[in-house]
């Protein structure tokens, strides 16, 4: 009886944590892609907003009915923002921290402004459920793992595995990592540092934008101001937690999503342990950020104390502009 209850609670938590973390997974993969080639884009919060608002505009104003087309439009918009960022930091070698924060601020401002007249409008172009292996399992397990949008499977399975394969199993991926670790050496063997940095930071921005598009097309599914609400920053933290490894990033994002849906579940069911129900809800709303903070600190702390941790260091040239003249 008790086992059934715990199992039930766990499965329902998972079934809500998976969609809640999808945004973070996508943004984290987007960040990771740029950071592997040495470009730190702190503007995730803005990219999620831009991706989201243009998907909403596509559906509500331009009358796009396919969610995939709306997703592509959101990604393209975020990609254009990413291109502007990349030109400033790669071509002009401006400070990645400053321009990244500018993108975060400007992106939030732009998306909220564009979304002003579309607040709370239902976005009527949603993904249909894609029940993977639906006939094999049933009940709670199916609800938890196999009854989500197709985008969820792309974000959790396809993208991380593909990125892992490219980064660690192909020559192209080795070149990418070289650009992030030692751009001068990569340049010397004929890898174009400029183009790979621009290309992958634009692609990464588009994937982060897909996170915002997923939010408005499926998760909420409506536009509300400040749509990212810190998820972009969490995604940046998740990349650190994951030690710049794509598959681990998925688990980092799930940790956030679990804490997030724990708060929602507690609120919905009126749980009250330690505090009364209202106070518990407030406390739990702080938890996703606190847990993310602890998650970044743990690997670094373990490495200092002397526990053997597989390489968790940032790409050596992360956030350092590359200039041939300065080698």
């Amino acid at each position, binding site marked *: 009886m008790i086992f059934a209850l715990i199992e039930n609670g766990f499965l329902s938590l998972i079934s809500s944590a998976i969609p809640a973390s999808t945004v973070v997974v996508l943004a984290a993969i987007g960040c990771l892609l740029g950071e592997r080639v040495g470009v730190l884009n702190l503007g995730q919060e803005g990219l999620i907003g831009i991706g989201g608002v243009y998907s909403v505009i596509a559906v509500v104003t331009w009358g796009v009915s396919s969610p995939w087309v709306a997703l592509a439009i959101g990604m393209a918009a975020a990609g254009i923002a990413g291109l502007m960022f990349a030109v400033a930091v790669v071509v002009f070698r401006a400070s990645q921290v400053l321009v990244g924060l500018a993108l975060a601020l400007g992106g939030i401002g732009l998306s909220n402004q564009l979304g*002003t007249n579309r607040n709370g409008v239902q976005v009527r172009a949603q993904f249909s459920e894609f029940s993977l292996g639906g006939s094999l399992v049933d009940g709670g397990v199916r609800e938890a793992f196999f009854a989500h949008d197709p985008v969820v499977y792309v974000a959790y399975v396809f993208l991380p595995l593909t990125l892992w394969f490219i980064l660690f199993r192909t020559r192209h991926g080795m070149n990418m990592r070289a650009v992030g670790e030692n751009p001068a050496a990569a340049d010397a063997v004929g890898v174009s540092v400029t183009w790979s940095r621009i290309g992958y930071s634009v692609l990464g921005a588009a994937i982060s934008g897909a996170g915002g598009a997923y939010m408005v097309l499926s998760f909420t599914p409506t536009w509300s101001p400040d749509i990212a609400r810190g998820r972009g920053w969490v995604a940046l933290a998740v990349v650190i937690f994951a030690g710049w490894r794509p598959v681990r990033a998925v688990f980092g994002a799930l940790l956030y999503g679990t804490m997030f849906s724990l708060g929602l579940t507690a609120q919905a069911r009126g749980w009250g342990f330690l505090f009364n129900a209202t106070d518990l809800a407030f406390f739990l709303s702080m938890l996703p950020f606190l847990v993310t903070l602890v998650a970044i600190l743990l690997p670094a702390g373990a490495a200092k104390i002397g526990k053997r941790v597989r390489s968790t260091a940032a790409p050596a040239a992360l956030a350092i502009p590359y200039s041939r003249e300065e080698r």
Partner: protein
Amino acid sequence: MNTYRLERRLDVDTKKSALTRIAGALIAMAVAGIVLLLTGRNSFKILFDGLEAIFGSQRGLEGVALRAIPILMTALAVALSLRMKIWNIGSGGQFLMGAFAALGVGIHVNGPGWLVLILMALAALVAGSLWILVPALARAYWDVNEIITTLLLNFVAAQLVTWASLGFWRDTEAAVIQSTKRVPYRLAELPGTDSLTIALLVPFVIAAVLFWIFRSTTIGFEIDTIGGNPRAAAFAGINVRRRILLVMLCTGAIAGLGGMLQLSAPGARQLGPGYEAQFGLTGFIVAALAGGAMMGVLVGGIFIASMFFAGLVLQTKGLSVYIIFGIYGLILTGVALGEIAARYRLVRVGDVVSSERVAS
């Protein structure tokens, strides 16, 4: 025929770099004006309305001064950390926690006003530095990047204040639904003004002290050395980790004190959502514009505070707060590009050839 090309400077002059940063910010504002024009808003009218709102009355000037206090405090906090090339993006959270602690003291301690206010200030200093303690320890001893850790705590602080204002410190008597109790104590008023208190003097005193520290003391020199090259500083015998910890705790304390000072502003004697009002981010932009120069922070802070205030006034006339965010983003980009522009100079290709001839 002479053609021009860009050449890298070997030494970047700090004065030139400041000028190009300011130029970058101004160009960014011009771009913002053009964008506003193109989207059907009269940016000249916005500019004149803004100027009128500021200089049209004493209330306008006091309004700017009131906004300048929190902005200058967070900007000084960020500027201090920038001297060490450390990015404290969590000044908004430290600001809130300073206000939170000061409010806690203010509504629970009874005593003579001056004593309670001093206790409030001390509580704010401690709370601000405690809020950055974990990121500071992690940065100093575990080499964990401080950008994300300080920023994540902003969200926690905002949630905590929401909790306080709706929950444990909620004002049950007032009609306002979401707000804490009011602090009954207020700093002494500045003579000759309607709304200003001696809080206005604090950022100027702190800026002067910091300016002196960096100009004339060993510790200031050590911090600048670490900012220039931490490895070299370590070889020179400076305890880099301890200096990082010290500086980060001080930045938190300054931002926290800013939160306490804000409690004396009219209409802000209680905490609620919107108390922080993006002062942290605004201060960050000021510090980036000033590039860590304390006197530059004062000038830039007053400039940005004027914009902030004009934005608030124009908001009542239909200019959305989101547009201000967009303009901030543009300004920050302009500053970042301006910083780079100072590193290059235009040279005539003909001159280069002749100088080579001299060399051979």
